C-alpha cells in the first residue's frame, strides 16, 4: 500500500454505507495514521445512490475534496453497476470490491477491468441476512475491505465494529454484525 490510500464507497441510502466509512476511519486511526471519512451530502433518501469516501495516510491529510482517483472502490449494491459508472477515475491498479451473488470473473468481465486491476466479490447481503436477519451489507463489506487492503487487522476492526454498533443496538444485533464482519473477511474472493 502506498503512503495514502483513497477509498470510494458506492451504496444506496439505508444500507449503512456511510456508517461503514466512519467505522473504517476510526479503526484506521491506530499507528498514528491520519484518516478522513465523509459522505457526499445530498437529499437523504432510502434507496438513492450515494457515495462516501475514506482517506488513510501516514501523512497529515490536507486535501478536502472528494476522492477522484480511488485506490479502492467498494460497491455495497451491485445494481449500481448498471446505473452509474463506478469505475470513474479508476487507476490502472484500482481494486474493486463488489457485493454480488455473481462470481468475481463475471463482475471482472462486466467492469471490463484492466489486467492490473483486481476485482473481488462477496455476497454481503446474504451474509447479513444469515447473521442478523436484515439486508444491511455494510459490516460484511467492512470485513472484505479489511481483508483486501490489509489496512488493519480483523481483530482491530471487530473491536471498532463492537464500539460503533454498541452505542445504538442490542447485543443480538452487535453479535450478528461481528459475525457478519468476520464472514465478509473470510468469504471475499478474487476473480
Amino acid at each position, binding site marked *: 500500500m502506498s503512503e495514502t490510500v483513497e477509498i470510494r464507497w458506492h451504496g444506496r441510502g439505508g444500507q449503512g454505507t456511510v456508517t461503514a466509512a466512519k467505522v473504517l*476511519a476510526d479503526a484506521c486511526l491506530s499507528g498514528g495514521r*491520519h484518516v478522513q471519512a465523509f459522505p457526499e451530502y445530498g437529499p437523504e433518501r432510502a434507496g438513492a445512490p450515494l457515495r462516501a469516501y475514506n482517506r488513510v495516510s501516514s501523512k497529515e491529510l*490536507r*486535501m478536502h*475534496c*472528494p476522492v477522484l482517483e480511488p485506490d479502492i472502490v467498494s460497491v455495497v449494491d451491485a445494481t449500481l453497476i448498471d446505473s452509474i459508472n463506478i469505475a470513474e477515475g479508476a487507476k490502472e491498479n484500482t481494486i474493486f470490491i463488489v457485493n454480488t451473488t455473481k462470481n468475481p470473473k463475471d463482475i471482472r468481465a462486466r467492469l471490463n477491468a484492466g489486467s492490473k486491476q483486481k476485482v473481488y466479490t462477496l455476497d454481503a447481503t446474504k451474509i447479513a441476512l444469515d447473521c442478523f436477519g436484515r439486508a444491511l451489507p455494510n459490516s460484511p463489506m467492512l470485513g472484505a475491505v479489511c481483508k483486501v487492503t490489509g489496512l488493519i487487522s480483523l481483530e482491530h476492526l471487530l473491536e471498532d465494529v463492537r464500539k460503533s454498533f454498541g452505542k445504538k443496538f442490542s447485543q443480538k444485533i452487535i453479535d450478528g454484525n461481528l459475525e457478519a464482519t468476520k464472514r465478509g473477511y473470510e468469504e471475499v474472493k478474487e476473480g
Partner: protein
Amino acid sequence: MAKVVAVTGNEACANALRQVNPDVCGIYPITPQTDMMQRFASFIADGKVDTESILVESEHSSMSACIGAAAAGGRVVTATSSQGLALMWEMLHIASGDRLPIIMPVVNRALSAPLNIHGDHSDAMGARDTGWIQIWSENAQESYDNTIQAFRIGEHMDIRLPVMVCLDGFIISHSIERMEYLEDDEVKKFVGEFKNFLPLLNLEKPISYGPLILTDLYHEYKRAQHEVMTKVKDVVLDVAKDFEKMSGRKYGLFETYRLDDADIALVILNSAAGTSKDVIDTFRDKGIKAGLLKPRLFRPFPYEEVAEALKSVKAVCVMDRADSFGGYGPLFMEITSALYHIKERPVLINKIYGLGGRDYLPSHAELVFNELNEIAKGAKVKNIKEYIGVRE
C-alpha cells in the same frame, strides 16, 4: 495527554464547548442549525456540563437570549449557520455594541435563494460589519483550537467582544477526520474562571445596557468600538502563544505556506487552503515558486501584517467563497486595501469558487496557479474578477 480521535468538526466544537462548561447556551434546534448544538444539548442532558440551555423559536431569539444572559453576567455560547446567522443580524450588532463576549461557532453555509445549505462563506461575510471578532478555521483541529482560544480573546478585560469561530459547512462540520483533544482540566485551566464586568444582576450597582444615545455621544461610542478592535491583534497573538505552550500547535493572525520566496500565491480561507497546499507542493516540485496565505483573524483584519507577507510576491489570486454581487469578492477587497499603500505590489486577481458547496478541486487550484505563473512572467490580466469551476 492529548487524546487522538476521528470526529466531525461539529463534534470537535461541541466538545470544546463541553470542556469550557459555559453558564448559558441559546439553542435554536432546527435546520439551518447543525448537529453541533444537538451534540452539546446531549452533554447538557447527560449532566456532563452545568450549562442552562434556552431553547428558542428562532435564531433571532437565540441571540437575544444570549445577549440577556451575557448582560446578566454569564459565560454564554451558541452556534449557528446560514439563514440562522442572517436572521440574527439585528441582534449581532447589539451583542457587540453592548460589549458582550458571547462565543459562537459559525458553520459556514450558503444563503437562500435558491435554497442551499452547503459550504459557502456568504453567511459570515454578511456579518463582517457587525462588530464581532471573526476567526476562521481550516479543519476540525483548528475549529476546536480556535473555539477554545475564542473565550480568552473575547473575554479579555481589554476586549470584551463577541467572537465567531468559522468552519466550512459539511466539508469540515460533517466530515470525520483525525484530530487531538486536550484534557478537560487543561482546557478549564486555559480559559480560566469567567470574570464578570458590570453584570445586570448586581443589584448593589444597578445599570442599563444599550440605552438611547443620541447625536451627542453615539459617534464617540462607535469610535470606542473601533479603538477596542485595534487591540484585538495583540491579544490574539498572546493567547496563541499560551495555547502553543499547552498544545504544541502554533497559531498567528494568518498562516503562510511556502510563501517566503514565492513568486505566485493564493490568499484563501478555511478548508480549501488545505487542498491548495497539496497543489503548491506539486508546483514546487516542478520548480514553480508557489505559496499561500490563509487568513485566520478576519475581523479585525491585520492589514499591515498581510501586506508585509505578500509584498514580494509577483502575482496573487484572492479566492472568495462568497460574492458581493456587482462588487469584488469580500476577501479580495481586504487584500487590495492592504496592498494599496505599498509602492511595488503584486498584481492581484480575484476568483469566486465553491459557492453552495461546489467542490474545490486540485484542478481548480492548478488552473489558477498556471494563470498566475503567466501573469508573473508579464502576461496581461484578462479579467480581474472571474468565477471558476463553472459548468458550461
